[in-house]
């Protein structure tokens, strides 16, 4: 099959089927069986269809047409490649492994345009490379599992009377409402559509469109229990915090748009057959050997920006273009664009400092947490960093690395003290996303993307297991659990698989381990590789190792508190039971993936290597920070780095598990006593580093104050100016009335009137009634008229 035509069609079908399901459920969901049970089946059918299409795209089209690189070291695809729309695959590049890698194989095109302005185009289109296909498969498979699982998990919503125990009405009763089964699946379908939209997007603008759409789906799903105030608040928080990230993303987009004039990732032909270059080719032109080189438009725009500065001279000083050795032309703008786009990813992937929304998002039903808030949507930020990767300057990558590093550490520490099972997992998600960001920032593109995929499976699994537990004991609080492994063995042991996968369990220095073993070790290797060339950034080398220790600790703490030991709440324990097969089935499937997806025989790594972004293989050096070097990812595979990194990762993880076992399994140390002895630290972590409080005082309250000021200003300043001027007008008119109207105007009129009156009185005197007198008046009048006319005629009218 010709991938050029079939891939877009297959993936478009996979993308649109959930949309169709959404539309059908919106319109007819209510009528699909009792409480809309049919909607659930429809939605499952849709996502399974998507999964089938995605898998066909992968195994039927992509893999047969794209060979894996023969061996890991002798890299750089010499894959045969037919009919990419525009392909820069150049086999000559594969000869020299130190030259930079060209474009990966990709297929791109536009479906339709949102707006075209001269050369500027905003379109809806596709960009498909191996990463796209891999993401499609990952998302659709996990989504299928979650959908099926949700059929069981959400069955409460099928009842005519759903009792929400978390909502107490003013009458003191719990809320009784009708079930909303179909609505849940309606949002899930919309979410899948939006998520696929991000993955398939052919340009940044389209990413942004679906970025917002997944945001709104997340909003609906977090706030699914609309009656719960905490849920709707969490939903608002999620959306607004994401919008803060989007604000940064908009700035990045504007910087790109104004300087490069395109959002398209890849090159594509227009109607005339000319090649329109996309961002990747423009920023990494072939002439510069795919090194990042800001195009002319960007250099001009940066100049314009600094010139437009009121302190133009200061602007010049800030642009160290004076230094002839450093070429910073356009680099600042590139940095702004990169960091701006990354801001969007910070919001979506819940990175520090915008990580605060994700733990609250656990208000949503657990399948949502598994699908949206761990496996897919929050990973979209990481995905975008990976997709946009060729456009990040080394400085922007450093920012990404630091943000990832801080995030992974903060989130891991908070997870230590949390007792809500879903929140532990949420912080774990934040922390793992931090790992991915760190890896990407340090140049480990494949490692980061690989971790994205493995993490999606084991974190989806962990959340579904936690959902199964919650379903059984009706609480999120781990302090009410314990000993559950006897009651629900499938859940317990699948969750153990998830825990082992997330801590990266495996035999060190061998090729045997769970999926997390491969991806996490790759990240740590990359960090060590980076640390070896950038000693000034040593913290980036040690943080992931420390994170591995904490991760192992809190994950096993979670598992022990839930499944091991004695039941801490016998009442709940007695009522607990293993979940129905519709829920355990997906657990087993995901557990299988969590074990095996990383195995070298499945070539996920090689598949991703096929999609390695253009020009990211060789080491790059910063232009603004000249002592910054982003090492080549392949340098991390040298034994000098790989062996110590692997051992460090293994030892720290083992240490974490041991510590957790000491405290929570063997009870050699009493957790409550530890709590007491580290009270200030415990309080600090328990309160999540006080981020919510801090933001409340720093941002939320000031915003509300400013808004009240604005409203006050309207009412009391602008309107009072108006009212005062109206009053002055009125007063003036009164003065005019008094001074002018009443004296002058009325005076004149009155004088006139009285004059006329007087005249009349006087004239009355002549009305004598004597005929003779009248005749005399007539005669006098006539004579006077005659004389007047004669005079006028004689003197004033010129004779012609």
């Amino acid at each position, binding site marked *: 099959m010709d991938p050029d035509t079939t891939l877009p069609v297959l993936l478009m079908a996979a993308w649109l089927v959930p949309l169709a399901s959404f539309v059908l459920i919106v319109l007819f969901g209510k009528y699909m069986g009792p409480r809309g049970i049919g909607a659930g089946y429809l939605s499952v059918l849709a996502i399974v269809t998507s999964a089938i299409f995605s898998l066909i795209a992968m195994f039927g089209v992509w893999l047969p047409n794209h060979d894996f690189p023969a061996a890991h070291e002798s890299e750089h695809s010499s894959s045969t490649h037919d009919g990419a729309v525009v392909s820069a695959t150049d086999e000559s590049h594969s000869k020299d492994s130190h030259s930079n890698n060209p474009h990966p194989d990709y297929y791109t095109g536009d479906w*339709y*345009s*949102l*707006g075209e*302005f*001269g*050369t*500027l185009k*905003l379109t809806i289109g596709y960009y498909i490379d191996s990463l796209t296909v891999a993401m499609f498969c990952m998302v659709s498979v996990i989504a299928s599992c979650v959908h099926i699982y949700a059929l069981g998990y959400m069955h409460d919503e099928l009842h005519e009377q759903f009792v929400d125990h978390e909502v107490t*009405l*003013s009458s003191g009763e719990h809320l009784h409402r009708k079930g909303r089964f179909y609505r849940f699946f309606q949002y899930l379908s919309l979410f899948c559509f939006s998520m696929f939209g991000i993955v398939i997007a052919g340009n940044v*603008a389209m990413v*942004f*469109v*679906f970025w*917002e*759409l997944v945001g*709104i789906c997340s*909003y609906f799903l977090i*706030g699914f229990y*609309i*009656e*719960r*105030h905490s849920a*709707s*608040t969490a*939903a*608002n928080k999620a*959306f*607004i915090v994401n*919008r*803060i990230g*989007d*604000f940064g993303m*908009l*700035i990045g*987009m*504007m*910087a790109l*748009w*104004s300087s490069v*004039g395109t959002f398209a990732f890849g090159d594509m032909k227009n109607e005339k057959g000319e090649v329109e270059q996309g961002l990747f080719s423009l920023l990494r032109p072939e002439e510069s050997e795919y090194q990042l080189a800001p195009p002319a438009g960007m250099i001009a725009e940066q*100049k*314009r*920006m600094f*010139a*437009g500065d009121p302190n*133009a001279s200061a602007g010049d000083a800030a642009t160290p273009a004076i230094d002839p050795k450093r070429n910073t032309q356009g680099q600042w703008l590139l940095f702004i664009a990169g960091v701006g786009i990354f801001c969007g990813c910070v919001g979506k992937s819940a990175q520090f400092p915008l990580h605060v929304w994700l733990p609250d998002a656990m208000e949503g039903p657990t399948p949502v947490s598994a699908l949206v808030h761990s496996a897919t949507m929050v990973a979209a930020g990481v995905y975008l960093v990976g997709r946009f990767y060729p456009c990040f300057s080394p400085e922007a990558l450093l920012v990404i690395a630091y943000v990832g590093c801080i995030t992974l550490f903060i989130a891991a520490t908070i997870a230590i003290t949390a007792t809500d099972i879903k929140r532990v997992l949420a912080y774990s998600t934040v922390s793992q996303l931090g790992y991915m960001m760190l890896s990407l920032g340090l140049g480990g593109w494949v490692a980061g993307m690989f971790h994205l995929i493995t993490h999606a499976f084991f974190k989806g699994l962990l959340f579904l297991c936690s959902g199964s537990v919650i379903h059984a004991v009706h609480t999120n609080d781990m302090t009410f659990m314990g000993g559950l492994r006897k009651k629900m063995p499938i859940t317990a042991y699948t969750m153990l698989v998830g825990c082992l996968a997330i801590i990266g369990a495996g035999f060190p220095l061998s090729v045997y381990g769970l999926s997390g073993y491969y991806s996490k070790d790759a990240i740590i290797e990359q960090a060590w590789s980076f640390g070896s060339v950038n000693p000034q950034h040593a913290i980036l080398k040690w943080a992931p190792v420390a994170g591995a220790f904490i991760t192992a600790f809190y994950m096993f703490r979670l598992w022990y508190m839930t499944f091991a030991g004695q039941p801490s709440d016998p009442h709940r324990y007695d009522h607990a039971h293993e979940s129905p097969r519709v829920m355990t089935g997906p657990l087993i499937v995901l557990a299988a993936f969590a074990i095996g997806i990383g195995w070298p025989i499945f070539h996920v790594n090689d598949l991703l290597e096929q999609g390695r972004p253009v020009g990211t293989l060789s080491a790059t050096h910063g232009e603004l920070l000249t002592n910054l070097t982003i090492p080549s990812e392949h340098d991390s595979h040298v034994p000098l780095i790989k062996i110590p990194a692997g051992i460090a990762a293994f030892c720290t993880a083992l240490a974490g598990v041991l510590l957790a076992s000491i405290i929570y399994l063997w009870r050699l140390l009493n957790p409550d006593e530890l709590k007491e002895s580290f009270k200030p630290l415990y309080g600090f972590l328990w309160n999540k580093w006080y981020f919510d409080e801090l933001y409340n005082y720093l941002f939320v309250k000031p*915003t*509300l104050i*400013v*808004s*009240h*000021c*604005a*409203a006050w200003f*309207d009412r009391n300043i*602008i*309107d009072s100016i*108006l009212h005062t001027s109206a009053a002055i007008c009125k007063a003036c008119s009164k003065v005019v009335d008094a001074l002018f109207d009443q004296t002058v105007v009325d005076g004149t009129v009155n004088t006139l009137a009285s004059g006329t009156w007087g005249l009349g009185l006087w004239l009355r005197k002549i009305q004598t009634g004597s005929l003779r007198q009248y005749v005399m008046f007539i005669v006098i009048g006539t004579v006077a008229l005659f004389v007047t006319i004669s005079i006028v005629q004689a003197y004033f009218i010129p004779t012609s």
Partner: protein
Amino acid sequence: MTLSDPKVYLSLLVFLPAVAALVLAVLPRLADESYKLISLAVTIFVFILTLGFFRSGAPIDFEAGVAEMQNLFNVDWIPSFGIQYFMAMDGISFPLVVLTAFLSVLAMGASWPITKHVKGYCILFLLLETGMLGVFMALDFFLFYVFWEVMLLPMYFLIGVWGGPRREYAAIKFFLYTLVGSVLMLIAILMLYFNSDLTRLDAQQLADAGIVSVEKGGDAAQSFEKWKESDLPLAQRYAEITKEADLTQRKQLHTFNILALQQMGQHTDLFDGEALWGKSTQWWAFLLLFIGFVIKVPSVPLHTWLPDAHVEAPTPISMILAGILLKMGGYGLIRICYPICPNAGYQMAYFVCFVGVLSMVYGAFAALAQKDFKRMVAYSSVSHMGYVVLGLGVWSAVADTGYNPDYWKMGANGAMFQMIAHGISSAGMFFMVGVIYDRVHHRDLDKFGGLFAKMPLYSGLAVGIFFAGLGLPGLCGFIGEVFVVLSVWKYSYALAIISAAVVILTAGYILWAIQRVYLGAEYKGPHGEAITPITMRELSIAVPLLVLAIVFGVYPTALLNYMQPSVDMQIDRLAVWTEEHDNRATASNPLGSQDGQVADAWQR
């Protein structure tokens, strides 16, 4: 005198509501219901007339993809002052005309709960529609002004008689504000009129102004010769004046023709003379017109009439007010301010953009603080209309950018799109507020809650429409906003960053309102028993609005096809003008004009 004559068709379109109002006035007393039905029928008929333009190939139609004026006609009205009955439509006005007719139908449908003086209400409503349609179609400045005023009085009474408790205050505030605007506009009109001179335009420009009619494919010069010999009053006066060979002695042939004034503004120095305090005629005209129009938009700080007017006005009038009346300000800016006074617009571009951004930010902040549902929506209008002012003003086709008009085109198209999108979403939002107000008779945001459970369909539609206002992709609000915001950086990155930040505030006030009104466990306000599901009548108003919001959001080309050619042409003209202007300035001042200095600075 057939319908295929633009003269007849357009006049019918504009004056049908007014005629119907007259008929209603003289009709014997009917049941209230009948008045509403008749008015609804008339608005529907007018809407069908506008739909008639979509039949491409029919004797009268509006072709997509054409930039120039279509269905143009002019008839002398008061020849001694050169006032004409001159109407036409292009891509800028046509979508607004259709929107007007469409929203009039919906607003009339939303008028059913009105029970007071129904006859008077219907008469005024229909008069209002004539005024609105006329404003968008008139191309004679005098005629434009007449329609502008025609619209004002019915609105005053509709707010003042049928409004809420503070209706008189709101009505007089609306009236005085708008009146100040129109007085300033009148001054500007007269300034432009007395400086205009038709004899300074060449044949092509006269043809572009719709004065000399050129056959399709015909030559402008030939038609011009023919026109000069015709017995049209204007042609005769033209001939009479141009008989005087000595240009210094020659009298001026003044005109109110907006298109001709545009040509003069862009191609002659007629409006460049000093008027007052060292500023040119066009500088003052622009300023006066700008103030007049942004009162209508409304922009901060001239916006305080809007919240009051909206809060007091009955629901259908709020829909009209937000959906259409505000658009007249934006329409005036793009049709009159910029093309007639390009030099002034160029000088004041930053000021205009600043006003736009200020409105966006200030309106959003103020909306966040409101307790009254309708007031919140009103402030959201202030914020959203800020995008329009900003998008029209991003004059990025300057020397720095090589006179590249593309970004400005994007901004202007975004602004125009935003006008239509806001017409749909804000009318919808006000209607949605009205639906719940009709039931519970209060609008206190803190005293709602739980409506989703009691009115699921209504709540779903309302949330959809509010999201259109929030600028969610896939709904109409997104397209306009994103076009505008993306275009700003090229003009000024500081303004761009501020304008992008507004997305956060918008999400804040809309989501917060949704949470307080629709979500939650139970209704907290009075009259809870009166909350009944949405009726068919209300549905038939809300659904079309939401459907349109989705259609334009998903497929904006449907609208841009009609709109963009005209907007692009105008921006292209202004970009060309800018380049010529800069060249003239550099030529006359070799050291570099003030405008050019910034550009030079960085080139060195």
